[in-house]
């Protein structure tokens, strides 16, 4: 064991305290990041995790499926834009629903004219609908549930059967049912007999082979009046409320990301000042400045790796179903934050490094060494 690790062993209390602080901060970051991801997924999971790469809203729909209405002419014009491959009309409405044995709740019903477009990209259980009045449900439902749509006073009851389950496909924090467009039209008309047939909220589409989704959205927006074509990622990121949530969390993350290097930097600065005499002695004994600098960086790295690793280990079990499934363990996010915190933490030792590199060994000959 070399001098660097021996110092850590002998002064373990202070290093454990620092590692504990890093653990706490890293854990809070991961926890808040998971909450942010969970909230956003609950908001727009149905958009982010559906299979159409391009969605077209009406301009006044403000990027909300339920508020967007496209006329038959607009639907026709969109389909005629060069580069547009397969298109599908999509309807979306929210209803009060009830599953036998549970309370009435809200659910979004999304109906698509083509199951290749605006259906969940992946099912966790069951299958896609193959008959009328079948649906894929978000994970709020169980396979085989018969979901009753509560009708308006003039409407008639209607039910759909959940034949498939998909994860992370809620819309605006409500449960979701994906059906074919005939079923969603029947649901709308059963709820309110005056609902006209043929309504289109959104057009989902796939570009022709070789055409980029970004290019196609530009092309649609410039050639069809009063429509707002977006890629799937744009539609998810710019949905009302999402940007605000992301912005609020970013402020929190920025604060945390500043606190970690501040704590680490101050710790090592104080430590360097406290052991100034020992460092000066080592320089006088023949330690090169690079040896002392490396020692400092190794200590910082050990503390940061330990702190971040413990935070990840604490977060891991919590993310397995914590807060009703709102928290999830995203390996890429955890790796990114770990790398960011490591980099910032190591960079924060710059002041201490500068101090160490400037130690003059001649000061070992003077009583009351200062650096």
């Amino acid at each position, binding site marked *: 064991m*070399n*001098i660097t690790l*021996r*110092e850590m062993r*002998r*002064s373990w209390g202070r290093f454990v305290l620092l590692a504990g602080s890093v653990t706490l901060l890293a854990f809070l970051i991961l926890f808040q990041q998971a909450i942010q991801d969970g909230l956003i997924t609950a908001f727009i999971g149905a958009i982010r995790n559906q299979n159409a790469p391009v969605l077209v809203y009406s301009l006044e729909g403000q990027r909300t499926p339920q508020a967007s209405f496209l006329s038959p002419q607009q639907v026709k014009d969109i389909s005629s834009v060069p580069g547009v491959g397969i298109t599908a009309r999509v309807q979306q409405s929210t209803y009060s629903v009830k599953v036998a044995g549970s309370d009435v709740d809200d659910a979004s019903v999304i109906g698509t004219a083509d199951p290749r477009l605006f259906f969940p990209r992946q099912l966790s259980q069951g299958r896609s609908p193959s008959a009328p009045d079948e649906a894929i449900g978000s994970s709020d439902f169980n396979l085989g549930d018969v979901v009753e749509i509560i009708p308006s006073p003039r409407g008639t009851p209607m039910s759909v059967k959940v034949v498939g389950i998909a994860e992370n496909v809620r819309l605006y924090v409500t449960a979701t049912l994906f059906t074919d467009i005939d079923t969603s039209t029947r649901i709308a008309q059963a709820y309110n007999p005056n609902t006209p047939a043929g309504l289109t909220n959104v057009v989902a589409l796939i570009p022709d082979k070789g055409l980029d989704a970004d290019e196609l959205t530009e092309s649609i927006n410039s050639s069809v009046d009063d429509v707002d074509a977006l890629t799937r990622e744009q539609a998810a990121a710019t949905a009302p409320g999402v940007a605000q949530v992301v912005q609020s969390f970013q402020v929190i993350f920025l604060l945390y990301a500043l606190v970690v290097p501040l704590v680490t930097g101050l710790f090592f600065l104080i430590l360097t000042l406290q*052991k100034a*005499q*020992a460092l*000066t*002695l*080592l*320089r*006088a*004994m*023949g*330690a*090169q400045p690079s*040896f002392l600098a490396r020692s400092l960086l190794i200590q910082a790295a050990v503390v940061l790796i330990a702190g971040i690793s413990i935070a990840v280990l604490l977060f891991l079990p919590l993310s397995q179903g914590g807060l009703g499934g709102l928290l999830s363990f995203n390996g890429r996010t955890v790796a990114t934050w770990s790398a960011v915190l490591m980099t910032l933490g190591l960079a924060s030792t710059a002041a201490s490094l500068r101090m160490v590199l400037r130690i003059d*060994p*001649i000061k*070992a*000959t003077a*009583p*009351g*060494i200062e650096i």
Partner: protein
Amino acid sequence: MSLTPALELKGVRKVYDVAGQEVVALDHADLVVGADEIVVLVGPSGSGKTTLCSIAGALLSASEGTVIVDGNDITSFNAKQLTTFRRNKVGFVFQTVNLVPFLTARENLLVVDELAGRSGNRKAALKRADQLLGELGLADRRNNLPSQLSGGQRQRVAIGRSLMNNPGLVMFDEPTSALDSKTGEHVVDLIHHEMKERGTAAIIVTHDTRITKFADRTVRIDDGVVST
């Protein structure tokens, strides 16, 4: 025993720039210390004793003159070369801080080897450290931290540390200043014994005239001028 002098200073001058003013700390000093000679360097405060020691110990570069330590001309060495040189060729016992507080007595000796990158031969280093500590009467204190040792014991560990790299020359800067007279005398006696046994040269900087009886020669320095 080597016939090469442990130290040769020829016309060494050290000038400091203090607030734009030249201050001469060492003025054309000439000094030769034999291979196993113990020289006591005496003089009033500010006379240049520590500066001379620092130049001889490769802690400081001379402004003028020639510095040869154990046959190596270090006059034109840069900071990195001086660092390597003092790590391998000289020993130093400082006035106040001599031990790394978070290392045991034994580890304070072993760190010399670690700094020199000789960790590969750990067994030999351990043997040498234990042997030195045994000779210094500290065999049973080798696992104690400096804070668990008395002043005299700490100074003895520092002597061991200064000998760990088998130096040709060891500098002792006021080695008894922090010790009571009885312990101080014991430490100097030990220095004398250890140096003579190894045939290692030593320069002992001191104000304490009682130490001179342990030296082969006393050198006086006043206002940077060495008079032998």
